[in-house]
């Protein structure tokens, strides 16, 4: 019997759970899950990318430790978003681990978190590993798959989409870095694409560490996307 599994399951039961995922790295999963959480509001955002912990870097929460109460790990609160990240446990230490240790860390992170919102968003690492298997064990999540129009990215993400379909899930696909507005002209630097596109906004770089203040075009587009969920 694995008591943490049971607790993790119970913490997510009755919630609307989204998993922002992509077998490919660097396609914008962390930026998108952050902006989705900020746009939806009243959401718990859980960073499952335990090696990179990008969420705390995007929100400027590095070096801060989670408080712990009888309710468990208390999320960081930014606007109406509640954020849980392993960075709030290990501070600025690197997390280097044998693969076999990852799943128990992910499961504990969910089990011990104080989750009191109706919506939960998970930011996943790249690859096809424990993060997906753990989430399948503990929740009935809706997959939001992020890709770019780049050929490598599309091919890699295709594995994930095939897997999800075999498991009976139909993913919502977001094509990030799809186009850029060059003085009124739309340019597609990575080629054509199908599906819901998100633009390249170079100004995002200025909001790393305070993504909560970003109100640009990518967030606007995500508002549209949310209506389709």
């Amino acid at each position, binding site marked *: 019997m694995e*008591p943490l599994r049971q607790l993790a399951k119970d913490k997510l039961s009755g919630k609307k759970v989204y998993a922002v995922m992509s077998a490919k790295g660097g396609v914008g999963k962390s930026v998108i899950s952050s902006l989705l959480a900020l746009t939806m509001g009243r959401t718990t955002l859980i960073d499952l990318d335990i090696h990179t912990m990008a969420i705390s870097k995007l929100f400027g929460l590095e070096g801060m430790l989670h408080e712990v109460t*009888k309710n*468990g790990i208390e999320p960081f609160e930014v606007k109406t978003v509640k954020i849980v990240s392993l960075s709030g446990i290990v501070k600025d*230490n690197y997390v280097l681990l*044998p693969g*076999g240790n990852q799943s128990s*860390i992910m499961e*504990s992170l969910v*089990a011990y978190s104080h989750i009191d919102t109706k919506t939960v968003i998970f930011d996943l690492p790249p690859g096809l590993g424990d993060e997906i298997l753990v989430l399948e064990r503990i929740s009935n999540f809706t997959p939001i798959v992020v890709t770019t129009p780049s050929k490598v990215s599309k091919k890699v993400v295709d594995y994930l989409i095939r897997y999800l379909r075999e498991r009976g899930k139909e993913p919502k696909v977001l094509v990030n870095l799809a186009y850029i507005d060059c003085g009124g002209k739309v340019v597609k630097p990575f080629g054509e694409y199908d599906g819901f596109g998100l633009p390249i906004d170079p100004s995002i770089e200025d909001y790393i560490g305070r993504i909560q203040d970003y109100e640009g075009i990518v967030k606007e587009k995500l508002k549209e996307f949310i209506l389709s969920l």
Partner: protein
Amino acid sequence: MHEWSVADAVIRTVIDWADGKKIKVRKVVLGVPSFSFLDVEILKEAFDTMKKDSVLDEAELEVKFKEPKFKCKNCGKEFSLNEVKDQIDSVRSEFGEEYPMHFMPALAPSFIKCPYCGSHDIALESQDMTIDEIQVEENGTVKTVSQG
């Protein structure tokens, strides 16, 4: 402090396992890795507070600390907690009560190096928290169920 979550987890798991059957749980034996330094007092207090009005109403919580066995996959040597005590102490003094391995013993390879070769490539036996035994009373007879 997350001992309350641990107690919560144990109670939920046993209730789920009992599955509505008419039994009384007498005792639950919880195995925890010693280097998580869970506070048994708080754990029992939390357990006794939260068990009310369930099959666990009269149950006692017993906590068994499991000693980890470390094995370095880089040099092949095995070592005990004692040999890395100084390393663990220094993590605890950096973080205080809520130190990383307190929540997640599986984080050990990030914070501990092999005392022989310095590698972080460390395999850990019995790092997970487990319910090892449940003692139940059903129709007057007491029996012990061992868990895998």
